[in-house]
């Protein structure tokens, strides 16, 4: 089980800010593939992952990063702070 969080338009497209996901995925990319296969709203949100950023346990990382043992994985668009 891993907590998956969504922010900004990714959250709006998927429809929830956070959910617990039962997964055996070993990388972020595997998790994206799993979720996209589930339902259209995931496939739509993850259609172009070059437009997305990911954090594993609150650290920015890449889509080929491992999620073994991770507590939370977050997907969001490029940040616009400041």
């Amino acid at each position: 089980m891993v907590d998956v969080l969504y922010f900004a338009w990714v959250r709006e497209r998927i429809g929830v800010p956070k959910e617990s996901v039962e997964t055996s995925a070993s990388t972020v990319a595997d998790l994206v593939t799993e979720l996209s296969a589930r339902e259209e709203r995931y496939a739509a949100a993850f259609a172009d992952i070059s437009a997305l950023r990911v954090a594993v346990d609150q650290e920015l990382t890449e889509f080929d990063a491992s999620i073994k043992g991770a507590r939370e994985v977050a997907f969001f668009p490029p940040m616009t702070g400041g």
Partner: protein
Amino acid sequence: MKISVQSEAFDLGAESTAFAQGHQDQGAIVTFTGIVRDNPEGTLQKMTIEHYPGMTEKALSEIAAQAVERWSLGDALVIHRYGDLAPGEMIMMVATASRHRKNAFEAAEYLMDYLKSRAPFWKKEFLKDGAEWVDAKQEDEDSLTRWE
């Protein structure tokens, strides 16, 4: 180091004064303040800032600690708001204290460049005719290469 992620407004004057008074041995204080700017058409109703609670505080603390280390700062401050903001309201501020003005300026620019593209905040603009997420700017991403 003061790091604050808050929905309430902050008092630029009080924060600036308190920061400067705490660092009278430093000689140079630089502050940057960001204000919600209306668009040229004057149609901005409000801006909503979403963030990633937990990660935000961590990211800001790391960025500020890096700036303090790299430019040997006396101190750094970052305040960033989230939630609903009206045009004209202050979004955020950073402050740096250094013995030398160049370090204070560079560190403040570094903080801003990192905040823009690496701190987990997302802005949504509510216009008269609908709402839209603010796109990240390539020029903000490019600004980061200066610090590599």
